[in-house]
């Protein structure tokens, strides 16, 4: 009955990138995250603000008795803040990092669909030059002439990074 406690390491290997993805919109761009990590999707709700947090941390929410942090992905990616609409969603995802597992909600403009991506659909992230590092991008998928950016949520929302920002903010 021994269980594997270690999280699966985030990997950049192409064969690990095939699978089902949940796509969502953010500004003019389409993003996708692996369905495996998604716990649920819900409409926007009242969020309790938490002081001394970076602006993209909107606060906390009660998810069936658990208090989970909520991150606005728009602000996280430096996009302008907009008013929430009926299409605005909170995607609750399971994040694995060094500290362990935690659930987190991310606010996106709206979710679109679930796609199955094959290895051939996925291209590596182009080199932007100038030392621009994009460790949180798994790759790019071209579906029906639209580019979807595949995100590694574990890298987008690491506790370390948030703690670092916490230090700056405090």
């Amino acid at each position, binding site marked *: 009955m021994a269980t594997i406690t270690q999280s699966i390491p985030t990997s950049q290997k192409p064969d690990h990138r095939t699978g089902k993805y949940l796509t969502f919109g953010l500004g003019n761009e389409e993003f996708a995250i692996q369905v495996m990590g998604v716990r649920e999707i819900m409409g926007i709700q009242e969020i*309790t603000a*938490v002081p*001394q947090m970076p602006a993209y941390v909107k606060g906390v929410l009660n998810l069936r008795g658990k208090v989970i942090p909520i991150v606005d992905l728009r602000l996280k990616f430096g996009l302008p803040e907009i008013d929430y609409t009926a299409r605005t969603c909170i995607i609750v995802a399971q994040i694995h990092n060094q*500290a362990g597992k935690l659930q987190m909600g991310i606010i996106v403009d709206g979710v679109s669909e679930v796609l199955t991506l094959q290895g051939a659909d996925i291209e590596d992230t182009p080199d932007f030059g100038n030392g621009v590092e994009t460790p949180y991008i798994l790759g790019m998928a071209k579906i029906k002439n639209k580019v979807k950016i595949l995100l590694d949520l574990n890298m987008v929302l690491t506790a370390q990074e948030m703690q670092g920002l916490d230090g700056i903010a*405090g």
Partner: protein
Amino acid sequence: MPQESDKTKTAGALAEESASLNPLAADPELLSDFILESREHLTSIELQLLTLDQDPTNSEAIHAIFRGFHTIKGMAGFLDQDAVRDVAHEVETVLDLARNGQLTITGAIIDRILESKDYLNRCLAELEPALATGNLPTPPDNSALLVAIRSMSAKPVERETSGGEKPVAPVRTVAIEAAAPTETVETATEGLADLAREVGKVEAGKAEVAKVEVAKIEVAKIEAGEVPTETPAESGAAAESGEGPKANVARAAGPRSIKVDTSKLDYLVDMVGEMVIAQSLVHHDPDLAVGLKPRLGRNLSQLARITDEVQRTAMSMRMIPVGQLFQKTSRLVRDLSRKAAKQVELELFGEETELDRNIVEDLADPLMHMVRNSVDHGIEVPAERTRNGKPATAKVTLRAGHQAGQIVIQVSDDGRGLDQAKILRKAVEKRLVSREAQLSEGEIFNLIFHPGFSTADQITDVSGRGVGMDVVRKQVQKLRGRIDVISKPGQGTTFLLKLPLTLAIIDGLVVGVGGQRYIVPIFAVREMLKPPEESISTLQGRQEMAMVRGSLLPLVRLHQRFGVQPRYENPWDSLLIVSESRGKQFCLMVDELIGKQEVVIKSLGETMANISGVAGGAILGDGRVGLILDLEGLFGVSNSE
């Protein structure tokens, strides 16, 4: 011991064909069970040893101790923990002689067995981290101990004389599939059965209000139902294995209990909390208030009553009796009194009083400190006692009980008591108080908790108190409790500990600032007031102060701290909460008081662990999260600016 290793090998081979070199790799769970079970056995062994100390002929106790060591030996052999096995084996040999009447138990033998027990505990402590790392540690050296024990069973023992003894079965645990080596709580089975019954009732109640379609409450109920319904079945298994060869005396005598993973228990408590919220949402639904039919109203109240009961039962499952903690001190008292050549009798009262498991764990150290102080310093040597007309045997009393919604733990001795004059003199020397200060008795006694008093060369040998007492107070405060001292010269000293029933719940005031709601822990609140305009003044045009009952208190605006848009900018429109932080009073300015609520404290998670001014989160009555304020943190930040 060739026979011995042969024997354990066969036992091992019966259960598992190949004993792997590293049992950890084979089955970490087995090892974690071993640690857990051995600890239990060792605790019960200690208890029985102390009984034996009082009455060396108590064969029941000898048997119980023998069985404990025997089981540990069997498990250790199976898991290739040779050091543990050897020590257990030697002790077992001694005990075997004793139970066959070939050896008389003496104080020295008990000392040695206690030593062995401590050694095994050390081994277990070292094994524990190995569960995570996978590297087995080298056990502490046991050769000296082995020689010492062997010398006790001086008669040549050719082979173990335990022909009729029960087979060493591999450990069969009742613990419910512990996924990782996690802590478990023992919950009385009655509690679980109660809960299962209540959940059953809720299910029945649900059918009645089924017309009210509230998907949320169903979800909560079903999930809450999942956990308890499977547990009664487990308790059957517990009873079965209890009848097996390993049934130990303590377990057979006490109430039947099973082990449950604490994370499961926490989940249950969470879900029950959600159920209560969902229930209250239904109850207060505006659609229902219009033309509420009496039958539906009755059913709703029934549902409310049952959810309440379920919540209380779920909460009570985290509680364990304080007796285990008390019993640990009996060993300490025994050791200390022997060393100091004092005659001390320990009396325990209210052992059945239940406390939150976390509190019990954190209370162990302060309790040890207090008992040590009492025996070491409070109690006089027998000669001095008889000279003063007291019985030569001193008494240390531990007493637990409920009082006004709190747990009160009392540690008393009938020793020489605190010397006020000496404490005061030391305090003046240490410049803790001024020479002219007029202190009440209570204030003088409280000085012993001052960190300055705790250094070894200070007051210890004069007045008898002070070692680590500041640590005690700190720990007690961490548990949101308080400690008081009562002492009469020549008659003894009493420490009074007052603790909350549980750390998981606090009584809070819900206050509003702008659109946000916060929870202020009630224990931190002195008073609340709406100040008149003229009572507010500023210092250097910046720092605001309020005159409250003749003293000027600094004013902290919560909305400024947290960057929230408030409803009122003027302190005289707002509500001031007078609080105290590190002995200094201050006022916290909020918009309004919304109500009072008992809330379950939830962590905000690691990413938000260190926000100054925020102690955690709590689910409010409407299902939203409210932040629990940490008033010390709030005041600290405002002070440093």
